[in-house]
């Protein structure tokens, strides 16, 4: 197959890959123990950058060297991943990380050993490569899982197709895995804000009730922990269209963690926080304090178990939950001893969330920072 030269952005990324190869080749040529420098992605090298409001990667690096028996295999895999990415880019296609795993897998001659045994081996190598080259996997032409939907007054252009997200019936626009500008462009948007909801069921409820029409907003769900595509989309929508972002999650450790990931970025992908995090996001609910505020029946709350309590106590210490509103909420959760899910609002009536809860919260600007 004739190699197509990658263009623009892709050319830059390809250059990074070739440079990596050249560096290693040079060391080997000098009979030096070859060595690749990789930013440390452990908790010890992560810090919360108060200025930007993002979780960021520090300066620590580790050296992956060939002559360290704990590194040799990973060293080989790193170069194999780099080589495979170059190949894909040259073909002008992209691939899933599972495909990449299969493309790399082969038996090492004379052994029973495979170059990669399963995907859990190749996935971290990809993340290492992203961090090392300071690039996104999307730019390496690798696709992550996709999840999530958008509805509301925005028109998008996706690889040439024009998609009007206000005319997507009951299903909404499915967020693709790659939402970089070379794929997705925002053509027109008249919305006033973005509402991000943790759960698809709530998204469907709000869509059915045409909440986005009444409140002139985009409604977006990541179906649980949002995928990279979804987080990047929120980031771009906010940055490029200056829309406020309100996040609506369960009132439990997991829901609040999802909020923090949308807002500050995640520890695991801290080297991408600039592109994945949206520090301006605000938390609209659910909180345990809402139970009193909205007179929610106690029997739809869920008792905290030991794990929950431990989790909340940890969260109390995180820098990004230091604002006094969050401290209050977390302490309240410990004190009342329960958590609750968004569906619990249904105990007040099916449309309670769209007709009472969210409108009141938005009107009173009753957000947590």
């Amino acid at each position, binding site marked *: 197959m004739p190699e197509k030269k990658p263009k623009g952005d892709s050319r830059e990324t390809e250059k990074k890959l070739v440079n990596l*190869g050249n560096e290693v*080749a040079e060391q080997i040529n000098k009979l030096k123990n070859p060595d690749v420098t990789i930013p440390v992605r452990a908790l010890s090298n992560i810090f919360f950058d108060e200025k930007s409001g993002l979780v960021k990667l520090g300066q620590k690096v580790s050296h992956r060297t060939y002559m360290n028996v704990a590194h040799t295999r990973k060293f*080989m895999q790193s170069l194999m991943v780099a080589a495979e990415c170059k190949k894909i880019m040259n073909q002008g296609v992209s691939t899933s990380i599972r495909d990449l795993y299969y493309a790399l897998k082969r038996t090492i001659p004379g052994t029973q050993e495979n170059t990669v045994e399963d995907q859990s081996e190749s996935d971290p190598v990809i993340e290492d490569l992203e961090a090392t080259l300071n690039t996104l996997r999307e730019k390496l032409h690798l696709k992550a899982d996709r999840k999530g939907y958008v509805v509301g007054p925005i028109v998008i252009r996706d690889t040439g197709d024009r998609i009007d997200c206000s005319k997507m019936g009951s299903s909404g626009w499915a967020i693709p895995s790659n939402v970089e500008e070379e794929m997705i462009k925002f053509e027109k948007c008249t919305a006033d804000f973005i509402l991000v909801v943790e759960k698809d069921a709530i998204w469907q409820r709000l869509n059915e009730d045409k909440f986005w029409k009444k409140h002139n907003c985009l409604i977006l769900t990541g179906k649980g922990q949002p995928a990279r595509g979804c987080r990047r989309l929120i980031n771009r929508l906010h940055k490029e269209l200056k829309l406020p972002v309100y996040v609506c999650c369960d009132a439990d450790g997991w829901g609040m963690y999802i909020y923090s990931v949308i807002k500050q970025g995640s520890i695991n992908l801290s080297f991408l926080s600039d592109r994945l995090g949206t520090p301006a996001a605000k938390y609209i609910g659910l909180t345990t304090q809402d139970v009193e505020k909205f007179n929610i029946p106690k029997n739809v709350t869920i008792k905290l178990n030991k794990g929950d309590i431990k989790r909340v106590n940890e969260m109390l210490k995180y820098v990004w939950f230091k604002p006094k509103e969050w401290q209050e909420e977390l302490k309240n959760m410990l004190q009342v001893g329960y958590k609750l899910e968004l569906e619990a609002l249904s105990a007040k009536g099916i449309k309670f969330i769209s007709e009472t809860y969210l409108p009141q919260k938005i009107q009173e600007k009753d957000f947590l920072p």
Partner: protein
Amino acid sequence: MEKPKKIVQAREISVSEFFEKNRHLLGYDNKIKALLMVVKEGCDNSLDATEEARILPDIYVKIEELEKERYKIVVRDNGPGISKKQIPKIFGKLLYGSKFHKLKQSRGQQGLGISVGVLYSQLTSGHATEIVSSTGDGKTHHYRLKIDVKRNEPKIEESAVDNGKEWHGVQVSFICEGLYREHKQSVLEYLKQTAISNPYANITFDSPTGRMEFRRGVEELPKEPKEIKPHLYGVEVGILSRMLHETKARTILTFLTSEFTRIGRLTGSEIIKKAGITYYNEKAGKEEPGFNISPRKVTDEQVANLIKAVKEVKLTRPPTDCLSPLGEDLIEKGLKKELNPEFVAAISRPPAVYRGWPFQIEVGIAYGGSIEGPKIMRLANRVPLLYQAGDCAITKSIQAIDWRRYGIESDKLPTAPVVIMIHMASVWVPFTSESKESIASYPIIIKEIKLALQECARKLSLYLSGMRKAQWQAERKSIFERYADETANAIHELTGKPADAIKENILKIVEKNIKKIELLEKREEALKNTEAQKPNGAAAEVKEETAEAGEEPPEEKAEASKKEVKENA
């Protein structure tokens, strides 16, 4: 007042009657074990006798099935024989023996063993026991005898002498009820273990399933144990009081120095002073230490004070020439001879003392090779213990060791292919019951066993980790080489440079660096070893639990203080 109806009427019970009714106390609880007990008592006596006479033992054992559950058992040795006069009492009277009143290491202790075999035979078969013995003087004595149970005296049914045979030794033949099996608590297992722990003995066994021979592995007997006097530490009030009345010594001081081991005039005087035994020296007009008071005049109170004084004085350990350990060399030879293992280690601990009796722990560990499952061999004065493993101080000690720390797979007891042999040599082994199958859990005994086990385990651990290290170094080199190909290919794809040249260079880098790494490791390890050994060992070894609630561990403290003293008695 109500008048009671009856008054207790009682009479004397002979010791034979007692054990006739209570033979399970002596190990005769079932037919399989009964055979083992008879063979064991015979062999123990034979080994004791030959060793004492400095003869390399040749033991012959035969078990023949006469009819269902009825067996003839023969045990023959090449020992010094028994004199005509002694034969009836030794075989026909319970609690008659040469070893009870001596402080000397031997297999038999109580004078109960062989005569109980005779009692068991007559009880279950009605047959007398046959004894043939010669002291090597050309005369051979033949006896057929039973025990008169009511009187605990021999009842001779037949006796004869013949002349002219060039043989010395003893042969005993029993006819009794039994059941022959070859499982792990059998005669066969007993003889196997005996062959390992007495590698200087030749043992021939004609069993119902055929002949087995255990050949001698070394041509030298272990050193002969000496008889000793009692040690003052651990002597109790009642015994001291009796000894004071029976002694030939004229003064307390000479009593102490002559009747006990390791009491010099200095220590003796100190004890008397501490006990506050004085007399009124009229010349000097004051109380003075009563060194010269007659032993018979010591009052009960003074006896008690003497005992207390002993605890305050530092005494030297008892002499240890009364013990005859196997020695590390003999243990290793015994294990190698019968087990064909891949690795052997042995430890003889220095002698220690419990309740005033010296004892010594020895441990041998054999690993791998022809050894299949894990096995524990418990020995007391070279005699294998096959029953009641659960109660035994040895089992408890093994369980208290964290074998995994030494790289030996275990689940309380080791599960690796390892044979652990533990030998307790003592002038007096504290069995938990008269059937002599398990050693009482005195803290000092458990401590000594654990120390020995730990030392052996460390040796095995070094061997195992050495083995693992060599494997690891080979493995490591292959790892570095294994990934060269794909690495070179990937670099080629990234850069366009020729893969072959890159691979060649990588292999050069491997060769160059691997030697550096190994050197570095050796240096590091040496450093680590010298640092780690001390604190590690100490911490594990000192930890000790008392085996049963309410057991007093008095020896332990005494032991510790005694170690610091040197005194020449």
